[in-house]
């Protein structure tokens, strides 16, 4: 739109407002009339873009060139088979919850307080007695060999190199034993409960035998998920298409070896209630999280049912089209939990400021999903390392800008809620 068009549109809008009974009632017509008479804004001088800077749509060619984690996304899309891309990119219905997750962070403003002694800035957090250098966690992400041949081993080596907690998906394309070896210590294991409890038991026991200290039971897909973008991306035959079935047909993922097939992500049609926590407790000594908690009521039930932790997640917008970002769910869950157990949150995290906001709203640690896959698909282990470096650097900078010398100094007072009068 040309500047003159903008001015005309603005004047028309103001005339409309001035004619509104609501505006008359609150006594603003005089102000609006004055605004209408105002001269059009002078054309803003726009400085020429520095020629040395690559335009945003130029693909990076090395992990070290990434300016933010979104720089990996376009490279990943270029590198991947469209169906593989669609599997990762998909949300549900119109993919609107993916967008809501990301945009939800803009609801909160950050209160900058730059004067503090940062000579000993401490980003570490404690989870079950284990100290982690940062609160940035690698979310469980399925089938990583579909994105790069290094797969989960590449991610694990990056987590090891950079000292991050890694959570391994039930749908991993690499065995938990091999991932633990690559990570150098046992990862946390994410579970999709099966309709056959014997099958669930086998998977849980295997993860426990591999040394995994924490079991994360994901519940947000039990009701199903309408992944339209995936279905359009893979075509009507899905993995049964001639080309796809060359790899997918007869393939059994490592954790399901010896188990009957079925859509375990959705619980295979099984019935699951809060009573299932006790069943899991009876078969494992691992600490137990439930992932996919989005309300205060379920936060209270998590406490009442003796969980060790809750994971606030809408599965990166690929479970239900709630349109509710997890950053909006987090405060009510954190309030319900009341500090009695760790709270991890994910979905839509793209910047260090997002991590900062989540910590301020009650998260103990913050998970990263799609950026992990983008960076892996783009550059393998090196990409994941670079992605983690970017987020850590951004969080560190935000802490410096806000006077937070340690994670516990990041509090609700660090933010202003734009939706709430008085912040």
């Amino acid at each position, binding site marked *: 739109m040309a500047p003159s068009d903008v001015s005309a549109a603005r004047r028309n809008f103001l005339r409309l407002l001035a004619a509104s009974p609501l505006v008359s009632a609150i006594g603003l017509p005089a102000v609006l009339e004055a605004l209408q008479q105002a001269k059009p804004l002078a054309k803003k001088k726009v400085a020429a873009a520095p020629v040395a800077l690559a335009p945003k749509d130029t693909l990076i060619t090395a992990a070290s060139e990434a300016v933010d984690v979104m720089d990996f996304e376009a490279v990943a899309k270029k*590198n*991947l*088979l469209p169906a*593989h891309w669609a599997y990762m990119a998909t949300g549900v219905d119109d993919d609107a919850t993916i967008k809501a997750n990301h945009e939800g962070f803009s609801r909160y403003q950050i209160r900058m307080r730059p004067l503090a002694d940062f000579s000993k800035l401490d980003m570490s957090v404690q989870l079950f007695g284990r100290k982690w250098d940062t609160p940035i966690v690698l979310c469980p992400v399925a089938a990583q*060999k*579909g*994105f*790069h*041949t*290094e*797969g989960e*081993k*590449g991610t694990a*080596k*990056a987590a090891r*190199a950079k000292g991050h907690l890694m959570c391994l998906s039930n749908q991993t394309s690499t065995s938990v034993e091999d991932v633990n070896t690559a990570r150098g210590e046992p990862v946390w294991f994410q579970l999709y409960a099966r309709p056959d409890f014997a099958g669930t038991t086998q998977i849980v026991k295997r993860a426990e035998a591999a040394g995994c200290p924490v079991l994360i039971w994901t519940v947000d897909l039990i009701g199903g998920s309408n992944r339209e973008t995936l279905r359009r991306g893979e075509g009507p035959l899905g993995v049964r298409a*001639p*080309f796809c079935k*060359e*790899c997918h047909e007869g393939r059994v993922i490592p954790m399901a070896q010896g188990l009957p097939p079925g859509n375990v992500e959705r619980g295979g049609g099984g019935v699951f209630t809060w009573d299932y926590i006790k069943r899991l407790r009876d078969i494992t000594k691992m600490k137990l999280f439930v992932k996919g908690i989005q309300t205060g009521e379920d936060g209270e039930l998590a406490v009442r049912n003796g969980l060790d932790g809750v994971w606030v997640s809408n599965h990166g917008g690929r479970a239900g089209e709630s349109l509710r970002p997890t950053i909006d769910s987090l405060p009510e869950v954190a309030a319900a939990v009341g500090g009695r157990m760790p709270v991890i949150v994910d979905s839509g995290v793209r910047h260090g400021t997002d991590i900062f906001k989540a910590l301020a709203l009650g998260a103990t640690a913050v998970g990263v999903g799609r950026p992990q896959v983008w960076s892996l*698909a*783009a*550059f*393998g*282990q*090196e*990409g994941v*390392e670079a992605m983690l470096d970017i987020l850590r650097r951004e969080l560190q900078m935000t802490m410096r800008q806000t006077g937070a010398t340690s994670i516990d100094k990041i509090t609700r007072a660090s933010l202003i809620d734009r939706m709430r009068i008085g912040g």
Partner: protein
Amino acid sequence: MLVRRGIGVLFVALAALSGQAPLVGQSTATVTISGTSTVRNWSCPVEAAVKVTPGKPGEAAPGFPAGVQAVAFTVPVKAIECDNDTMNGHLREALKEKTYPQIAYRMKQYTMAGSGAAKVTGSLTIAGVTRPVSFDVKLTPSANGVRSQGETNIDMTQFGVTPPKVLLGQLIVGKMVRVKFDAMLQPTP
């Protein structure tokens, strides 16, 4: 991804009887070959044997005050491990492993380009075809030796290698590959 570790450094003195021949440093380098395909990107690491002969006519380099006379990398094709038996098979076939079991690089000369950086030229032999290849090397002295890192892009078709095309011809491997190496070289005593 480049695996940043130097492995097993061993020094062997050759022709000790004469006292004239240069010492040859032998070590291993982690070489990572990576590339693209129409499905996903891939990478396959392998350990290469490295021989470094210090001495003239090379100019002084970090860790090698008397210069470097010769450098030779040898990669056994059979040892390239893609963590996938099918991929391993296709790669070995494309590289004609049965006829040419080794990939070799011989340095011809180098010039120092600032602190710790060198421009190396030499010849690379893949599948029996030898072509000149140049790349930049970063040399970083440490307590364990001199870490040597570099990378270059190679068009496999220039070596007569046809990139694999499999799965009904729809999985096509890109002709360009990126080769990275990371070695810990032991300076001469």
